[in-house]
């Protein structure tokens, strides 16, 4: 086992084996709100190297041996614990595929903070493809936060292709918050989920693209058990000449309820394609899809201007609120 583990409930004290520079620190703050070494279990990956790791008595992080990535084991019944697994890349031209598997024990209740920040000042593309699989045990609850951020003025692209698979056992619940607001040139996000009886999935995606960026987000959620439910809501803004595609499909294979919503603002020459997808294979599957795309309402801008904001300031406030 290459992971480190301690036997107490206290967070493992760890010395970084890499000293972070200012850019790396900034990326860590953007994607994981990390100002210092986090409490609880964590793994920090920097430029394809492990830059820090800590397991706790209840959460064990183990490196995979066949491919790049980790297995994260959360013991049944673990409560009020967190796992941070941020990734930062500051070398131009790096390309990596990382597989992280989470095994969440029965009745556990944990927060998992992932996220990737790329700063690319070079001319070569930098790419991180993180494949996350979640095996969520009976009646377990997880809150998963994933933030993506890109910066740097190089011509090389910042590319992030996250793959997320969620397998939920009976009575489990998963809340996912996916945020990508700035600087990522190209994203193809694929999310798949399978839910057993009574399981609940809530996804809140917030996305803003600008320049010539492209973002594609695809969801396939299968509601396989009686009483399972999914609520997937995407709010996005496409500015400049950027392009987004939101493709959310819910399949109801049992008495269940599902809702997807895509609410988008287009600005400048931005383009958005929303593809509603509902498949009911059970008479008692209740599925709803909502999609709305449009520019910022003129009366919203007018109202804020009567409060003393300029047109640009008004737009900024409206977008900030919308993506909150």
């Amino acid at each position, binding site marked *: 086992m290459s992971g480190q583990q301690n036997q107490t409930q206290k967070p493992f004290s760890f010395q970084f084996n890499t000293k972070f520079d200012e850019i790396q620190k900034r990326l860590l703050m953007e994607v994981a709100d990390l100002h210092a070494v986090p409490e609880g279990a964590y793994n920090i990956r920097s430029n394809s190297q492990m830059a820090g790791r800590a397991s706790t008595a209840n959460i064990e992080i183990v490196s995979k041996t066949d491919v790049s990535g980790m297995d994260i084991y959360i013991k049944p019944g673990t409560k009020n614990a967190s796992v941070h697994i941020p990734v930062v890349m500051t070398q131009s031209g790096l390309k990596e595929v990382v597989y992280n598997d989470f095994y969440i024990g029965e009745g556990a209740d944990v927060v998992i903070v992932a996220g990737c920040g790329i700063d690319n000042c070079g001319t070569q593309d930098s790419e991180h493809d993180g494949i996350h699989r979640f095996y969520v045990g009976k009646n377990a609850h997880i809150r998963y936060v994933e933030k993506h951020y890109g910066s740097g003025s190089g011509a090389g692209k910042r590319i992030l292709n996250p793959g997320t698979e969620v397998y939920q056992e009976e009575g489990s619940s998963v809340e996912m918050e996916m945020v990508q607001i700035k600087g990522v040139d190209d994203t193809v996000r694929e999310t798949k989920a399978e839910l057993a009886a009574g399981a609940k999935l809530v996804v809140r995606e917030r996305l803003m693209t600008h320049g010539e960026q492209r973002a594609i987000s695809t969801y396939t959620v299968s509601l396989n058990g009686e009483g399972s439910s999914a609520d997937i809501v995407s709010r996005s803004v496409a500015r400049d000449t950027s392009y987004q595609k939101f493709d959310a499909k819910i399949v109801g294979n049992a008495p269940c309820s599902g809702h997807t919503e895509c609410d988008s603002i287009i600005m400048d020459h931005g383009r958005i394609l929303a593809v509603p997808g509902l498949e009911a294979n059970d008479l008692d599957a209740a599925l709803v899809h909502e999609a709305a795309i449009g520019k910022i309402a003129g009366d919203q801008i*007018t109202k804020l*201007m*009567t409060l003393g904001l300029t047109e640009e300031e008004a737009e900024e406030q409206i977008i900030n609120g919308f993506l909150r």
Partner: protein
Amino acid sequence: MLELKHLSFTAADDDKKDIIRDVSLIIPDDRFVVVTGPNGGGKSTLAKLIAGIKTPTGGQILLNGEDITNKSITERARLGIGFAFQQPVRFKGIHVLDLLRIAAGKQLSVTDACEYLSEVGLCARDYIGREVNASLSGGELKRIEIATVLARGTSLSIFDEPEAGIDLWSFQNLIEVFKKMRGSIKGSSILIISHQERILNIADEIVVIRDGVVARQGTKDEVYPQLIGTASAVGDCIKRGPGKTEGGAQ
């Protein structure tokens, strides 16, 4: 002081209808002025021309002697014009506190923001963190709209039909809000577009706008008694006679 000089507005659509025709008007400081008149007479258009939401096709608007005819909505707002919409705008994700802070132009403390909400009869604790979205009722939105104007503390506050979309019970409380504003008007003026007797009743001055022109103007005591039950107040219905309702339904 606000001064309108020969103000005109012609609709840009195919009809080219003259909505406001050569209106000259003075709203002095420390006055509570109610603009009333039949629907479609041009009252709301006049309010929007003053706030800069619509651009006049003729005439001048002066605020404290400065010509603001060609100034933007933002510039006028910064010069001290506040405007409460007849139909308040909803925003996804913007909270009541955000809106009050934008209105105040500073990082208003939660306590101060709550003061404004309390003034319009809202239990501040329940609303301060709410989104200004479709989850709020028409009456709640209207009160928040008025609170944003209070938070601005402008020298000229314009309210476009504050009674519209509010139930009778809520309106009762709003009258108190306006009475209170009138009580502390020193150094500012208030212009309210309204049909409500109770609002007309607390006016210093009443202006009747009809068919795009000032049909009557004077103190409350001069104008108000003539208004009640007259054509100026109820418009064309009376002229058409009983049974001749709009749309021809008999």
